[in-house]
């Protein structure tokens, strides 16, 4: 079980409160986490990564275990603590004023 923390706008789109818990059928990577999220919450398709290329949107970041893993390979395993569910996988909207 993976715990995912979504930013407020994506929680609204997905119509969830608080953390989301998802089950993966494959190794836990940013890609497989996004695949599972989009399957469960179709409204998130295109909101975290591009529909076609699956590239992370420029102003979306992935944090895990106090580290920004946005630039790691999307197919690289996430830290073991995230894979085990003891730490959440954070999807973050970049900070901005206005």
């Amino acid at each position, binding site marked *: 079980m993976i715990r995912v923390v979504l*930013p*407020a*706008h*994506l929680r609204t*789109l997905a119509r969830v409160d608080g953390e989301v818990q998802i089950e993966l059928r494959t190794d836990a990577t940013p890609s497989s986490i996004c695949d599972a999220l989009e399957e469960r919450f*179709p*409204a998130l*398709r*295109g*909101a*975290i990564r591009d*529909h*076609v290329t699956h590239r992370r*949107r420029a*102003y*979306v970041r992935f944090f895990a275990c106090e580290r920004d893993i946005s630039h790691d390979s999307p197919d690289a395993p996430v830290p073991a603590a995230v894979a085990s569910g003891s730490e959440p996988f954070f999807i973050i*909207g*970049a900070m*901005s004023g206005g």
Partner: protein
Amino acid sequence: MSKIRVLVGTRKGAFVLSADGKRDDWTISGPFFGGWEIYHVKGSPLDPDRLWASQTSLWFGQQIQRSDDGGKSWEPSGNKFAYDGVPGTHQWYDGTPHPWEFARVWHLEPSLDDRDTIYAGVEDAALFKSTDGGANWSELSGLRTHTTGSSWQPGAGGMCLHTVIIDPQNPKRMFVAISAAGAFRTADGGQTWEPINKGLRSAQIPDQDAEVGHCVHHIAIHPTRPDVLFMQKHWDIMRSDDGGNLWREVSGNLPTDFGFVIDVHAHEPETIYVVPIKSDSEHYPLDGKLRVYRSRSGGNEWEELTKGLPQSNCYVNVLRDAMAVDQLDKCGIYFGTTGGQVYVSSDAGDSWKAIAHDLPAVLSVEVQTLP
């Protein structure tokens, strides 16, 4: 008595303003999709309780929302806008080729004859169509792949397809406008397109009367006369009497002919409205006075309309999709400002009042006249 529903898209959400046919007492609901940019909200002419909203964010991309109960509840529709084939390139600001990249939906135009069909004008400029209530979108790529497409360049606001007009007498004929490529027309439902920019002159491009490259800000028609088009270009108010084959300038006595909006009275096809803006480098009204100008002669002779509008220290803008008219006997005119005001005139422009004062910056205004 009829009811009026005003659909307002803003930088931070959508709002629905409602009143009875007197248009005196207004209720405001919203924000819907708070915090998101709502470029456009529009209702189906066949089913007025079916509304569409373009919800967009630099962070989280594009959503299309649909309501089937007049805006009380909304459901996300399909949001995959993939260009047809290999999209190729257009000109970038520095003149170099730049890949076509989807950014957002600027304008939603519901079909006049099928409630499940809707068109979307997008940035980078292209036209998409859904025939299944918004679940799936396909590009009408004959527009983007026009022989001139690779030479189109974005204006400062992006290369947006912002105006979509369906000919009420022949739905296969449509008009679109792109900043900064110009106006285009199809006669076959969007399969093939031709530029219709003859007569436009733009000092901002090297060849001032080029076939494409003009920064058209908005086009409006009266539904009974689809061959008569009115255009607010970057600078210049233009008019065509032959469906866009040839344009002539009708700026006449306007104090400045820069601006974004233009619209036509619901019952008087020769009565048109604009909001002059000082210049392309100063996007606010001249002399700090917010003035609508009305021509009852289809252009050239204009009268200023100021009653109820701020006449000092007003430095808002009125963006291209932020003016609309209702269908009541005494035609109502509506517009929204970047200062968050929505103004209504229930006497065809003679007098105005603000029906919302402090919304986020207004991007679009549409009006529904309901039974």
